[in-house]
């Protein structure tokens, strides 16, 4: 029997709620065939379930614990993540609590040697970075899930065996009231870096495991500094290593530092060692405020991915699919891009709106993204935690030169999580005018947000659908487009036309965005008849300077094999 710990976790600022185990129908002898079972109610599993529900797909969400994340864990969420989270309805609550920021500072021998400023576009609803403890985010997502009748969230339930067949999966689950079998057409493994499902099915990860171990510690302290990323290189109290600091809501600061070589996790987490090091860091930056430890943990840096995220009826997503270096906020922020890419494809396959092989593009696009991330992250990692003598000397020489030589300062810049452009996706239409545009999101990239008015942005208007953004001042859509739209809609496939017009127009049949000064036209390099075909995950799959019905048909066929 599986008995999850049902005493609320300790925290200085967060009240843990216990979500009790409830006896499922299977334990009373019912045999049910589910559409989708998702393993892991972490940030990625919760968003997957909510994203699927937007298309009317029911799911069972399995979680071994009975409460949300232990400790703050993921704390920095990117603009692209906020855009994805907006689609599943949690950003209003997040914005009441997050600490937004856009600047990073690197210090060496008491001097600031590099400052990074992430651009903030007036058309963006969300800031480049947003700090919030993972517990709050999970709580908001859980509340959203509990309000969604299509999602059956089963707490206190642990996977102990899986049988993956070409036409479905059978799970053996353990609970406080005994074991039962669960049958599902599809399984989404969102069970994190130590994925049970990956362990049981046995696919091998490719890539490197770095040698560095890191402590992350949250302390409650009052430090009068703005919300910016602080990085301290080679401080006297921890020679050769790097210390990162981030501000979190509720008067909490995150400290992150590398362990000296040869030190074990137990030694590093011993209270006297933690206290000494954290105090040394605070002393160095001239902070003498009292502080209290909230939570700490040790992790090791990795850069690995599964070569394929699709295994018969099992889809791997988030950390279950890959383990990425922590520098650059690549955990949850990558995981949501994964599951947002996957959810619409899985929904379309289940609904019969597209053939099942659409899911192969999930693996193709996201494995490519993971490899790009690993490549970019390895550059930052080599600087932050040099893997050998050569890289250590280069890093030390760069630090020394940075005090007088500005030319080395760009080397301090480390790449952070970004939205990946699916430039080589099989879903992109070959017959379009992508190369002729001088602005706007390129084919494969996510849409760029547009401020339409007070508290009104382009992304607010988007939902669980394929979109054609159609720039035109004409009162009527072209007849061919109306016919195609009606035909697609009759087949059940969610497809909407959004017309962007410089003239005020009213339409019963489709959404119209009024663009009086042509701002969106300009940002999208659009003139009369320009069209963007947009996937349900907001990525562009084709764009044309001039609408042509035949081209649109070709692109739709490419995207969902529409006949």
């Amino acid at each position, binding site marked *: 029997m599986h008995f999850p710990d049902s005493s609320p976790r300790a925290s200085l600022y967060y009240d843990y709620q216990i979500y009790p185990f409830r006896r499922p129908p299977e334990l009373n002898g019912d045999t049910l065939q589910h559409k989708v079972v998702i393993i892991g109610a972490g940030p990625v599993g919760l968003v997957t379930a909510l994203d699927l529900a937007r298309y009317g797909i029911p799911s069972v969400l399995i979680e071994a614990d009975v409460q949300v994340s232990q400790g703050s864990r993921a704390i920095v969420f*990117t*603009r692209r993540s906020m855009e994805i989270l907006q689609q599943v309805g949690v950003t209003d609550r997040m914005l009441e609590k997050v600490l937004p920021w856009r600047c990073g500072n690197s210090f060496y*021998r008491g001097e600031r040697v*590099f*400052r*990074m*400023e*992430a*651009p903030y576009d007036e058309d963006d609803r969300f800031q*480049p970075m947003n700090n919030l403890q993972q517990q709050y985010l999970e709580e908001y997502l859980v509340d959203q899930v509990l309000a969604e009748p299509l999602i059956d969230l089963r707490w206190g339930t642990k996977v102990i065996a899986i049988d993956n067949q070409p036409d479905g999966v059978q799970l053996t689950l353990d609970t406080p009231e005994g074991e039962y079998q669960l049958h599902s057409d599809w399984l989404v493994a969102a069970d994190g870096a130590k994925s049970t499902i990956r362990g049981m099915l046995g696919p091998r990860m490719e890539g490197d495991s770095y040698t560095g171990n890191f402590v992350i510690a949250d302390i409650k302290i009052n430090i009068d500094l703005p919300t910016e990323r602080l990085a301290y290189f080679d401080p006297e109290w921890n020679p050769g290593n790097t210390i990162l600091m981030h501000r979190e809501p509720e008067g909490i600061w995150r400290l992150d530092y590398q362990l000296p070589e040869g030190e074990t996790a137990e030694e590093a987490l011993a209270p006297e060692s933690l206290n000494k090091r954290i105090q040394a860091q605070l002393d160095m930056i001239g902070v003498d405020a009292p502080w209290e430890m909230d939570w700490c943990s040790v992790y090791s840096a990795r850069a690995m991915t599964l070569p394929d995220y699709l295994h018969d009826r099992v889809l791997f997503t988030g950390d279950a699919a890959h383990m990425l270096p922590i520098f650059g906020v690549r955990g949850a922020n990558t995981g949501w891009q994964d599951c947002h890419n996957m959810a619409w494809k899985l929904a379309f396959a289940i609904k019969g709106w597209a053939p099942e092989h659409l899911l192969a593009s999930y693996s193709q696009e996201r494995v490519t993204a993971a490899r790009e991330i690993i490549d970019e992250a390895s*550059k930052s990692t*080599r600087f932050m935690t*040099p893997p*050998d*003598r*050569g*890289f250590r*000397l*280069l890093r030390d020489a*760069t630090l*020394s*030169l940075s*005090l*007088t*030589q*500005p*030319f*080395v*300062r*760009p*080397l301090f*810049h480390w*790449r*952070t*999580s*970004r939205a990946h452009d699916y430039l080589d996706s099989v879903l992109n239409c070959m017959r379009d005018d992508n190369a002729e545009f001088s602005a706007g999101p390129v084919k494969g990239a996510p849409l760029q947000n547009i401020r339409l008015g007070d508290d009104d942005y382009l992304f607010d208007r988007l939902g669980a659908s394929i979109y054609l953004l159609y720039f035109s001042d004409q009162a009527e859509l072209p007849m061919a487009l109306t016919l195609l739209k009606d035909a697609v809609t009759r087949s059940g496939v969610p497809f909407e036309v959004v017309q962007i017009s410089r003239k005020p127009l009213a339409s019963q049949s489709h959404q119209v965005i009024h663009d009086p000064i042509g701002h969106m036209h300009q940002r999208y390099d659009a003139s009369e008849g320009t069209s963007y075909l947009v996937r349900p995950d907001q990525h562009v799959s084709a764009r044309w300077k001039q609408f042509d019905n035949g081209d649109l048909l070709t692109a739709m066929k490419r995207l969902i094999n529409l006949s």
Partner: protein
Amino acid sequence: MNQETIGHTTMSHNTLSTTALEQVYDQLAEGITQAGAEKEALFLTKLALLLANQVGDANQVSESIDEALKNL
């Protein structure tokens, strides 16, 4: 996020782009590791002489030697 602002260099003569600088960084690091702990100083000294010869200006090399001695 891939377009974060990066500080510009202020040197007026030939300088490396960030991409080129990163390439040099990686190759130099690999060279040092390849030379090995015993021979890394010899390798770096040879490299300095080779680059000095390519610069072709003893005054400039002298300035760089002084610069490199700072903040050790």
